[in-house]
């Protein structure tokens, strides 16, 4: 009997990203292809595992998928704000005339507040409803939670969530020792241990604790890249932890949204709608130190200083403002040289992202270190050439040099050279895209999980 731990999805209350999305895909796969897989969650307060019935699992999947859709609505909030300001301006223009400017400045000042009030009032209403429903929910949840699980000898427990937050590996170790079942975990990366300075806050001790206990409790660890496996085993060896069996599973690629699905879709972000009419390079990633947006900014600035501004396409960053990049964000905001060249967008829906991938010239991904490098695979899935970092796991995504170029993430000169070359050689890009179409095969989540749930 396979038991898939879905604690992360069960507790998740935002649109699913990264690891949550992987777990969600595993749930979908299990529901559709592995009928004998059962689902469980771990209650940290009670230190117990409980079975979650398939009906409830389906509800969780639906609710998380719904949140994904909801996030698009959230993204529209900013647009609604602009509409609101537009009509208010009209109103003020006629009513107040000369005072209109002053009020608009004030409104601008309070823009985040207005958006927050809008979002939070919705959240508040939701919470109120949940609060009223609470006693009924508790009753129904209690009913579901009644089935505490005692894993048996031939059972296999599989977990791929945010386990450093949600699990008690000591407890799992104890019950595993007693009941002798199999335990399989996922390792996405050990970056917080290797490069704590590239992570937010000092999380290194938490991950050291987690990955060593993982070595003791697991029978097998699936690593999402050969590089991650190498890092994990090296860490275990250097810390004298037991070295457990590991294997590599390639994560499934993002399901591409085909043109047919996009025909009726209208970009609501007017800026994006405008920008896609021109050539642009795309960088999809949270803006944080590890992702190394700075090297692309510098390459752009140097090219502009050398007089290439007119031949350079626009550069679009898609990603939220992460940590450790305040100075870079200031540079991007105040550097007059790139003001009409580099654009940043956040909270983009899958449809909008699909359009951006389809319309871009090529993508760049200069990350300093990765566990995998999803945006590179995503770019290739959309048939787009990527100038990618040569670091860590990124070259594993697709090593065919006819389709993808790798550059040392610290090598500014090479980035500068390559960006200029591909920006001005569309024939080369076309050749690359042709090769991608010919050679790059999308990995389905089914292929990924067949290996895990065998």
């Amino acid at each position, binding site marked *: 009997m396979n038991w898939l731990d879905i604690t992360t999805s069960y507790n998740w209350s935002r649109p699913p990203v990264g690891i949550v999305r992987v777990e969600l895909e595993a749930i979908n796969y299990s529901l559709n292809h592995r009928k004998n897989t059962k689902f469980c969650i771990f209650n940290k307060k009670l230190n117990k595992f409980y079975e979650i019935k398939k009906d409830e699992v389906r509800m969780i999947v639906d609710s998380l998928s719904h949140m994904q859709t909801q996030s698009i609505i959230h993204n529209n909030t900013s647009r609604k704000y602009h509409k609101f300001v537009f009509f208010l301006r009209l109103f003020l223009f006629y009513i107040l005339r000369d005072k209109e400017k002053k009020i608009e400045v004030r409104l601008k000042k309070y823009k985040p507040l207005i958006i927050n009030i809008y979002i939070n009032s919705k959240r508040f209403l939701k919470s109120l409803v949940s609060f009223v429903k609470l006693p009924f929910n508790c009753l129904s949840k209690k009913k579901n939670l009644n089935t505490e699980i005692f894993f048996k000898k031939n059972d296999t427990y599989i977990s791929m969530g945010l386990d450093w937050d949600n699990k008690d*590996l*000591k407890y799992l*170790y*104890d019950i595993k*020792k007693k009941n002798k079942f199999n335990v399989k975990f996922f390792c996405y990366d050990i970056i917080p241990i290797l490069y*704590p300075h590239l992570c937010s806050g*000092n999380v*290194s*001790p*938490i991950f*050291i*604790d987690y990955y*060593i*206990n993982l*070595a*003791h*409790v697991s029978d097998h660890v699936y690593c999402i890249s050969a590089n991650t496996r190498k890092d994990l085993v090296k860490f*275990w060896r250097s*810390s*004298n*932890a*037991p070295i457990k069996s590991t294997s590599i599973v390639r994560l499934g690629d993002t399901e591409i949204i085909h043109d047919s699905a996009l025909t009726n879709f209208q970009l609501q972000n007017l800026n994006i709608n405008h920008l896609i009419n021109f050539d642009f390079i795309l960088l999809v990633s949270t803006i944080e130190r590890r992702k190394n947006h700075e090297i692309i900014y510098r390459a752009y600035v140097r090219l502009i200083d050398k007089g290439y501004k007119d031949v350079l396409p626009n550069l679009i960053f898609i990603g939220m403002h992460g940590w450790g990049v305040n100075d870079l964000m200031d540079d991007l905001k105040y550097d007059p040289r790139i003001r009409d060249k580099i654009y940043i967008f956040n909270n983009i829906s899958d449809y909008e992202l699909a359009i951006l991938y389809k319309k871009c010239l090529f993508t760049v991904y200069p990350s300093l270190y990765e566990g995998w490098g999803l945006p590179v695979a995503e770019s290739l899935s959309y048939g787009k050439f990527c100038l990618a970092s040569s670091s860590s796991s990124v070259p594993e995504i697709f090593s065919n040099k006819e389709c993808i170029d790798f550059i040392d993430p610290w090598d500014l000169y090479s980035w500068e050279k390559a960006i200029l070359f591909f920006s001005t050689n569309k024939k080369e890009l076309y050749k690359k895209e042709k090769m991608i179409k010919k050679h790059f095969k999308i990995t389905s989540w089914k292929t990924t999980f067949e290996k895990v749930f065998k």
Partner: protein
Amino acid sequence: MAIFKKNIDGLLLSTFPFMLPRHGGQVRLKKTYDYLNKNGHNLKSIAFFEQNAYPRACIGKFDIPMPLNDSWQIYKGHQQPLANDFITGEYVFKNKDYFLKQVQKRFSNIDYIYVEHPWLYKFANFIKEEKFHSLKIILGYPNIEYKLKREILKSFSIQQEDLIDDIKKIEIHAIKNSDLIFLVSKTEMSFCQVIKSPNTKLAYSKNGFDPLSDVENKSYQKLKKILPKKFIFYFGSGHPPNFTHINEYLGDILAYLPPDVKLVIAGGVSQHVYSAFTKDENFMFNQSRLILLDEISDCDLNTLLNLAHIIVLPIGYGGGSALKTAQAIGSKCFVVSNNIGLRDFEEYIDNRKIYLCKKNNFKETIVKLLEKRKSFKKNYSELTWEFQLKIIDHEIRGIL
């Protein structure tokens, strides 16, 4: 068969009090003091000790504190760190007339002076020359002092060869002129054999252990709440070298210990071990594998020596034979030690209960032994205090 004198008056001189023993040296002295007094000796002790460094209960009736200010700690014009024992001896000898009066006030007859370590040897000799001409001087010599002091200073990155030379002179003088020397290990034996005068007798009496008694229920119930089923045990006083090399043998991170096994530390060494394992980003993990008990009662120590799975002895340096080594051998646990931890107990290495390891296989041996079941029958009676202290009594009576 020798005919021994029945009532013997002895004076025990030391540079530390020992009535409430904490470190190995104190334990040995207390055991010796108690045993001899129980067996026909009228042994009194004077410890010249640093004020405020010991609990009141540790101080004996005739013990003499050093001045409260630090004037006595000045040696050759400056403060001398980590050499209080040596400096105490020098200070006492410098004020020998005053201290002789103190001795005379307390003792009307002395048959022998037992000087623990050579620090107070010059003063003992002065007492002999000035007052009690027929007394015998017995030297307790557990370490080659100059070598040990050099190691201690080195571990604190202090190099002071003039001090080491002075210590060496003192101990060679003491070895040459003592009537009887008690040694705890072969290393000191060979050192003394070369230096000693023909009349000096050398006797060998190791540190011992008290046979384990049954676990007291009260202690067991108390410790059961905090101890896991399986644990590794290390105990010692908070003095170097008990903690100086801990990471070299046990590693910076206790990752080789499964989640249900802990490293339990008792004694003054606890805080030092805690520091050694919490100095870097591994602190969180190490804390999950550590249990610090600090000072514990003899009764609790007995419980731990009964229940532990493995006792580790990752001792950095040192001479003599460690008291905790004898206790570890007499325990009901596996013993994993380096060569220094097992110095002079080499004949007990059997790779069944007692394992000698190097830095590179110390942790590996621990991991292997965690899987093994404890089952030992040998009782090592020759290593008990009773056995070892009988030698001391016998040898003292032999020279009088």
